[in-house]
C-alpha cells in the first residue's frame, strides 16, 4: 500500500511541470504541504496579533481600573463608552483571548504550520498522504477563524463565559449577553475548527506511518516527527469528545434538551429542565482539555529537541528516553482530566486517583528537562535566535512544570484553584513554552519556508525583550494567586484585602506592553525577510535532517528525481571520525564507523 502511494506521488511529481499553475491553485487552493504550512502560519500570526492585542486591552483595565483610556473606546466602541471597559466586555475579551491563543495560535498555528512543513520533508515524502484533505483542513481552519472574528462584532458581544464555556452560563442567553448569538458563533467556529484538526491529524498520522522514505525506520525519525505524530493521535482521540460536548450544548441551547441543565431559575423564570448536570460538560470538556495542553506543548518540545541538538552540535541526549517520555506523557494525559475538577464536588476517592495520575506526569517531564540540559552539556552551542528561544522554552517548561506539582495535588488545589496562580502556571508552562517553541521553529525553518534568511540581530533583540517581559508578566502572577486573587475578575478594587496588590498589577501590565511592542520587531523581521531577506543557502545550520536536502526553491513533490534514501539517525553531530561536525541522514554508514544502534 505504502509503496503504491509513493509511486503514485512520484509519478505525479514528474508530471507536474505540465500542469498549468494559476494564482488560485498555487497560493489559495494549494494542495502543496509547503504552501499550506505557510497559510497556517500566516493565519496563526494574524490571530496571534488579535489575541495579544486583547490581552493588552484587558491588562490596561486590570492595572488602572479607574483610569479612562480613549484607546479602549477606539477598539471597543460602545463597550467602553468613556474609555472605561464594561465588565461584560472584559469577560468577552478574556474568553476570546484564551480561545484564540489556545486553539487558533498554538494548536492550528503551531501544529498546522510545522507538521505540514516538516512531516513530508523530514520523513522523505513527496507530500502529505492526501493533499486535498490537507487543503480542506486549512480552509476549515480559515473559515473557523473568520467566524470567530465575525463573532466579535455581533450586537451582544462575543462569547464571554471563559474559554472553557461551562454551562449553564454558556447555555442560557439570560445569564450574560455573550451567551446569545456570540456563543452560537463560537460553537460554530469551534465545530469547524475541530473538523480542521481532525482532517489535519489523520493526514499527519497516515503520512508518518506510510510514506517514510527507504531507510527511515521509526527509530530514525527526528524527534519533531515523533512529537507531531503523537500530537496528531492525541487530537484524533480527544477532539471528537469536545465535539460531542459542544453538540450537546447546542441541543441544550436551542432544542430544549437537559443534558447540562437542571433546577434553574434565571431572569425571574424557573426553567423546565431537570436531570441534567453541568458537571457532565466539565468531564467531556476536560477529556479534550487536558490532552489539548499536550497537543499544544508536544510540537513545541519536538521543535526544541531538533533545534537544541542541531545547535549544540551534539546528538539529543537519550533519544529513546525522549520518545518514551513523549509516549508516556501522551498516555497519561488521557487519565488526568479530573485535576481541573477537584472542587466540583467529585467523589473524594476520585480526587486521590487524579492526584496520583497527574503527579506521575512529572516524571517523564523531568526526564525531558534533564535530557535537554544534558544535551547542552559539553556542546558547541550555536546561539542562533532559534536556539535561544529553545533554551527559553526549557526554562519556562521547568518553571511552569514545577508549579504543576502544587496544582495537581488536590489538597493544595482547594486553595489555589481558579486563582491567578493557575493563570501564572498555565501561561508559563503552556503559553510561554509553546510560543517560544513556535518562535524557535520559525527562526529555524524560515529559510526552508521562504528560501530567505531572517535578520539575525533583530531576532536577538526580539528574544531578549520577549524573554524579559514574558517572565515579567507571568512570574508575579503567582503572588497574586497565593494572596487569594481569583481569576476572571474585571477588577479587584471591590475587596480591600487586595488593595496591596496594585503594584504588582501595574508591573505586570507594563511588562505586557513591553512584550507586545517587542513583537513588532518580530513582525517586521518576518515580513521583510520573507519578501526581501538574504537568499538562503542549502543547509544554513549544517543540519542532518532530510528537509535540508531538498532544493531551496520549492517544488511540488519536494525532490527532483528520486527521494533520498536514509542510512542513519538524524543526530550524528560531532561524530568521532567524521570530517565535519554533522553527518546528514543520507550519508551511508562507512565500514569503519561505530554502529550506534540506529
Amino acid at each position, binding site marked *: 500500500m505504502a509503496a503504491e502511494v509513493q509511486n503514485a506521488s512520484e509519478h505525479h511529481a514528474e508530471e507536474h511541470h505540465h500542469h498549468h499553475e494559476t494564482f488560485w491553485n498555487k497560493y489559495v487552493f494549494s494542495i502543496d504541504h509547503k504552501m499550506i504550512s505557510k497559510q497556517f502560519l500566516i493565519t496563526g500570526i494574524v490571530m496571534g496579533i488579535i489575541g495579544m492585542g486583547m490581552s493588552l486591552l484587558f491588562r490596561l483595565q486590570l492595572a488602572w481600573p479607574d483610569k479612562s483610556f480613549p484607546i479602549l473606546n477606539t477598539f471597543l466602541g460602545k463597550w467602553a463608552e468613556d474609555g472605561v471597559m464594561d*465588565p461584560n466586555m472584559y469577560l468577552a475579551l478574556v474568553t476570546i483571548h484564551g480561545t484564540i491563543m489556545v486553539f487558533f495560535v498554538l494548536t492550528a498555528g503551531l501544529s498546522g504550520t510545522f507538521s505540514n512543513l516538516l512531516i513530508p520533508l523530514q520523513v522523505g515524502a513527496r507530500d502529505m498522504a492526501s493533499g486535498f484533505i490537507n487543503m480542506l483542513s486549512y480552509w476549515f481552519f480559515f473559515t473557523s477563524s473568520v467566524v470567530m472574528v465575525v463573532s466579535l462584532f455581533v450586537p451582544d458581544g462575543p462569547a464571554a463565559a471563559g474559554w472553557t464555556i461551562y454551562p449553564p452560563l454558556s447555555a442560557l442567553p439570560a445569564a450574560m449577553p455573550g451567551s446569545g448569538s456570540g456563543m452560537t458563533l463560537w460553537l460554530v467556529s469551534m465545530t469547524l475548527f475541530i473538523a480542521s484538526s481532525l482532517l489535519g491529524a489523520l493526514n499527519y498520522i497516515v503520512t508518518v506511518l506510510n510514506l517514510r522514505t527507504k531507510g527511515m525506520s521509526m527509530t530514525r525519525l527526528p524527534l519533531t516527527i515523533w512529537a507531531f505524530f503523537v500530537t496528531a493521535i492525541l487530537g484524533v482521540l480527544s477532539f471528537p469528545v469536545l465535539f460531542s460536548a459542544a453538540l450537546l450544548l447546542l441541543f441544550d441551547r436551542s432544542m430544549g434538551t437537559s443534558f447540562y441543565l437542571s433546577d434553574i431559575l434565571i431572569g425571574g423564570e424557573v426553567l423546565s429542565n431537570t436531570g441534567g448536570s453541568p458537571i457532565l460538560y466539565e468531564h467531556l470538556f476536560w477529556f479534550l482539555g487536558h490532552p489539548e495542553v499536550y497537543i499544544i506543548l508536544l510540537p513545541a518540545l519536538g521543535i526544541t529537541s531538533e533545534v537544541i541538538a542541531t545547535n549544540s552540535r551534539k546528538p539529543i541526549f537519550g533519544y529513546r528516553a525522549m520518545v518514551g517520555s513523549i509516549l508516556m506523557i501522551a498516555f497519561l494525559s488521557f487519565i488526568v482530566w479530573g485535576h481541573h475538577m477537584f472542587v*466540583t464536588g467529585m467523589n473524594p476517592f476520585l480526587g486521590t486517583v487524579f492526584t496520583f495520575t497527574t503527579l506521575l506526569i512529572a516524571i517523564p517531564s523531568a526526564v525531558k528537562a*534533564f535530557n535537554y540540559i544534558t544535551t547542552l552539556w559539553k556542546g558547541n552551542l550555536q546561539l542562533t535566535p532559534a536556539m*535561544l528561544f529553545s533554551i527559553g522554552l526549557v526554562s519556562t517548561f521547568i518553571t511552569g512544570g514545577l508549579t504543576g506539582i502544587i496544582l495537581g495535588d488536590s489538597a493544595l488545589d482547594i486553595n489555589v484553584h*481558579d486563582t491567578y496562580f493557575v493563570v501564572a502556571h498555565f501561561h508559563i508552562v503552556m503559553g510561554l513554552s509553546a510560543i517560544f517553541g513556535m518562535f524557535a521553529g520559525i527562526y529555524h525553518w524560515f529559510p526552508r519556508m521562504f528560501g530567505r534568511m531572517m535578520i539575525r540581530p533583530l531576532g536577538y533583540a526580539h528574544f531578549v525583550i520577549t524573554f*524579559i517581559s514574558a517572565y515579567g508578566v507571568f512570574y508575579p502572577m503567582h*503572588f497574586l494567586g497565593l494572596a487569594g486573587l481569583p481569576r476572571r475578575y474585571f477588577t479587584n478594587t471591590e475587596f480591600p*484585602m487586595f488593595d*496591596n496588590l496594585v503594584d504588582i498589577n501595574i508591573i505586570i501590565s507594563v511588562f505586557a506592553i513591553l512584550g507586545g511592542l517587542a513583537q513588532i520587531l518580530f513582525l517586521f523581521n518576518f515580513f521583510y525577510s520573507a519578501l526581501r531577506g538574504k537568499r538562503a543557502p542549502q543547509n544554513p545550520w549544517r543540519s542532518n535532517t532530510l528537509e535540508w536536502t531538498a532544493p531551496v526553491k520549492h517544488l511540488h513533490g519536494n525532490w527532483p528525481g528520486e527521494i533520498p534514501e536514509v542510512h542513519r539517525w538524524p543526530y550524528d553531530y560531532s561524530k568521532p571520525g567524521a570530517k565535519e561536525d554533522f553527518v546528514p541522514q543520507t550519508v551511508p554508514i562507512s565500514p569503519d564507523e561505530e554502529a550506534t544502534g540506529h
Partner: protein
Amino acid sequence: MMTLLITAVVVLAIIALAQVVRIFEISNSMREQKEEDNRPSHKENDSYGKIGFALGMLFWLFAIWSTFKWGKYLLPVSASNEGLDTDQLMWITMAVIGFVFLITQPILFYFVYRYRGIKGRKATYMEHDNKLEAIWTVIPTIVLAIIITYGIFTWSSIMNPDFEEEPLVVELYAKQFSWQARLAGDDNILGYANVRLIEGANTLGVDPNDLNGLDDIIVSGELHLPVNRPVLFKFRAQDVIHSAYMPHFRAQMNCVPGTVTQFAFTPNKTTAEMRQVPKVINQIDHINSLREEMGEEPYEFDFVLLCNKICGSAHYNMQMKIVVETEEEFNSWLKEQTTFAESL
C-alpha cells in the same frame, strides 16, 4: 519602583532601536555574499552566551527578590484547622520545587555560557547514559511518591472529615450576584429546598411543608460562625455555577445548579483574634496607608466569601462577610435572627 520600571523600558527600547539601525547596515553589507554556513560567528556566540547567562540569572534574582518583596502577601494567615494542614503541605511542596527551581535554572543558563560556541570549542559526542538517566528518573519518582502520599492523606482527611463534635450545618446559596446562607437551626437539619419552590419572601425555595426547615435561619450580607466548632457547608446555586471561596479558611467548593455539594472545616480564630495577629496587623496597616493615598476609608480585617467561578458581569463583586466569634456571641447573634417559619 515605577521609575525604575520606566527607565528599564526606555533603556530596552533604546537598545532595540540601536539594534535595528545596526541591522540594516549589517544586512546590507551581507546581502551580497551568500555563504553555505549561516551559523552565528564566534563573536555572536560569545556575546549571546554571556547575554543568555545574564538573562537567566536576572530572572533567577528576580524570583528571589520578589519572594522577599512580595512574600508577605502570600497565603493570608490561615484561620482553620484544615488550613494549618494544607499550609504545611504547601510549604513543604514549595520548599521542594523552590529548591529544584533554584538549582536547575542556573545550571541551564550556566551551560549556555560555558559551552557557547567560541573559537576552538568542540562538542563531545554522547548519545545517552543509562546511569544518569536512571538517576533522574528514580529521584523524582521517590520525591513525588512522598508528595503524592502526603497530599492524598491530607486531601482524604479534609474531604472525609471525622469530627468528634457534631458539625454545625450551614447552607451557602449562590445566585447572580450575591450570597445567602441558611443555618440549620435547632435541629441542625436543613429543610428540603428547590428553586422551583421559590416564591415571594421564600427566596431560597425552602419547602414550607418540610418540618426540618421551619427552624432554618436565612441570612444575607453577613454570616456568623462560632469558633472551634466544625462547620459542614452545603452548597447550592440558583442559576449558573459559582464557587464558594474562603481564602482564609483554605476552603473552596463549587456551587452547581441541580446538585448539592459540601465541604467542612473548623474555624480556629475569631475575627477579633485575627485582627490581633501581627502579620495581619502589618498587612492591614499597609493596605490602609495605600487607601489613604487613594482617599478611601480605612479598612478593618474581616473574613470574606468570594465567588471564584466565572458567573457573569458582576462575578468580580460577589461577596459576603463572615464573622467568626465565640460560642456566646454566636448564640446571641443567632437569637436575633428570624427563622424560616417566622418569615413566612
